[in-house]
């Protein structure tokens, strides 16, 4: 399947660091796209600036629009309103979508523009050297918070739901089958869909927080994947006691 997906949908190998969570998302996305027969000829991928934005551009064999930092959703809005018959999919990072571009995110959710937004949330600005993002957990180390992040992190699921998004989901890359199933549901959804994809950045975030987070295992990325598995609980299965202090994963459909 990996070979087939790559040949069918991907132009060239990625430049991502070894073990990059974005690669795992890309893998899951292509599994999902192939499963539902997403027609790449009638799909436009829009992305901004950062590592996450490189998942579709220049890799996907489809129309790709690689835009200015933070503005992918606004560009995508113009495309979708003009050509409603095209699938318009935004794939970009947490810095791009939720920090510099947060305003466009909440307004696209409010308007219910029928685009799909996948926010590859690796908790950090990877490409520019590991600076703090709006999703970096409080207390964590980044190159611009050497003594620990003094600010609170955005809960992107709560943000998107609060802005009125009718489909919101959160899945971690460590659970690739759940992630794939979620992507299938998001792509099939006929309204605005937002997914907080919990990705991982071993290079910028992992190294800086290795000691603090106690990533253990035979390799840094494996330690991070194990950590991610440990902090996530399925919102539908877990009891209230089990969810305390954990990150809820799953899907949230708006009522009505």
């Amino acid at each position, binding site marked *: 399947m990996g070979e087939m997906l790559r*040949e069918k949908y991907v132009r060239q190998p990625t430049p991502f660091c*070894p073990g990059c969570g974005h690669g795992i998302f890309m893998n899951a996305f292509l599994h999902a796209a192939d499963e539902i027969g997403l027609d790449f000829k009638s799909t436009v991928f829009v992305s901004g600036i950062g590592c996450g934005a490189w998942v579709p551009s220049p890799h996907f064999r489809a*129309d790709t*629009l690689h835009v200015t930092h933070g503005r992918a959703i606004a*560009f995508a809005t113009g*495309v979708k309103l003009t050509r409603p018959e095209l699938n318009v999919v935004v794939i970009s990072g947490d810095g791009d979508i939720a920090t510099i571009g947060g305003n466009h995110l909440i307004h696209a959710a409010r308007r219910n523009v029928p685009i799909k937004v996948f926010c590859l949330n690796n908790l950090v600005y990877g490409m520019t050297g590991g600076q703090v993002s709006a999703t970096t957990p409080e207390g964590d180390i980044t190159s611009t918070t050497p003594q620990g992040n003094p600010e609170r992190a955005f809960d992107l699921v709560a943000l998107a739901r609060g802005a009125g998004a009718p489909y919101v989901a959160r899945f971690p890359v460590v659970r690739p089958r759940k992630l794939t199933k979620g992507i299938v549901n998001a792509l099939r959804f006929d309204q605005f869909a937002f997914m907080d994809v919990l990705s991982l950045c071993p290079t910028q975030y992992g190294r800086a927080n290795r000691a603090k987070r106690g990533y253990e295992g035979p*390799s840094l990325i494996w330690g991070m994947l194990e950590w991610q598995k440990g902090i996530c609980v399925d919102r539908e299965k877990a009891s209230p006691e089990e969810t305390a202090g954990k990150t809820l994963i799953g899907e949230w459909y708006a009522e009505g």
Partner: protein
Amino acid sequence: MSKDRTFTIQLHEDLCKGSDCYICVNACPKGVFAEGERITSKGLRPSQVKDPEECIGCDICEFLCPELGITVEEAGGTEQVSTSTPKRGATAPASGGWTTVQSSLDPGTHYMIGDEACAEGAIAAGCGFYGGYPITPASEIMVHMAKRLVETDGVFIQMEDEIGSIAAVIGASWAGIKSMTATAGPGFSLMMENIGYACMTETPCVVVDVQRAGPSTGQASRPASGDVMQAKWGTHGGVEIIALAPWSVQEMYDLTIKAFNLAERFRVPVILLADAITGHLRESFQVEETIELFDRIKVPGAPPFGSDDESGVPPMPSFGEGEELLITGSTHNRYGIRKTADPDVHERLVKRLSKKITAHMEEITDYELYFEDGAQRVVVAYGSTARSALWAVKVARERGERVGMLRLKSLWPFPGELIREWGRRCEEFIVPETNLGQISQVVQQHTPNPVSLVSQTNGEIMDPRRVRDFLMGRKRH
């Protein structure tokens, strides 16, 4: 997943990024993978398939490989590897170029404010998308477009800010439709980054800046021409831009049509530098029966971002045509492939983006001459200021002054040759401006003759008496 089934595992060693990843080695519940023994030419040590017979077909390695480098198949399975890759481009015929169409308004005299005439010009030019944000004194363009685009089956959206507005306009243009936005100084400032993106990605669109008195919030409903240099140099990187300057409601209509034609012809954002006078003035204007329109050239399968001609304009495909478009604001080659460290590609691209404009000055440059016979002094004016200047020149002529006037309808690219030519015939230039001197400096760059600025920055239309007194005062010296 029972053990009586056997699986084959294909590991793409060239893609494997080695020991810093090894997710497959750690993820496999059966220890099928092992750390590599071979070091590649890239200095990586790819993982290896050690015990394939242990595989239970759980697929977790395939799902977790960030490089899509692992394929697990059941031995004797029927899974087909698709080798078909989509072809570039459809086989549709080439299209685009000049056409003559019926005017959208009834031919004859119409009476409206400049902002509305601008919107009507856009509709006449075939604009099908407007994205904007409210701002004085440009809001009437948006309000009029909101109404008109319903009637013409176009798309209208009021975005969350001016950054989003120009972004949506560029997205709509690539979706295959003529698109525009309108704003004033503060919003124009916010749009600068994406205007540069439109230049770099060669995206046709029209941006109307109904200039008001700045800096900052300034005087929101008062006219000025303080954004002339911003239109040219506001976006980073330094690239040629096309900007037109209407002086009447008639030209709010005519030059908007021209702006769309130039945008489509040269694949550039075109800026219409109106001001609070031309935007809010109400006067009559004429609509012809037909208008000439240029539609972007389409040549299916042709490279969308390059040309063998160093001043060439490449054809422009749209989304959904099977072209697998790679559109990026990063430096790119003719196919849109990023070349962010190639000096030759960068230089060639940046030069062509400018040359495709400067090599076609005759198609872009637009001006009008008044009282040019025997003019020893030439007033160079543009926008609403030219209305005041023309009155002053007329009065000065009546009193025997040998004064003429050159009215610039296109400001960028600056028609320097025109100034050089007039500089050989006249003795000096006078440039009245409602700023501290912007075009006056550019005029001086193109002539050794003295250039005098008549500046007024009080948020009022240029006082015609100020220009007249300057012209007459010179005589007394």
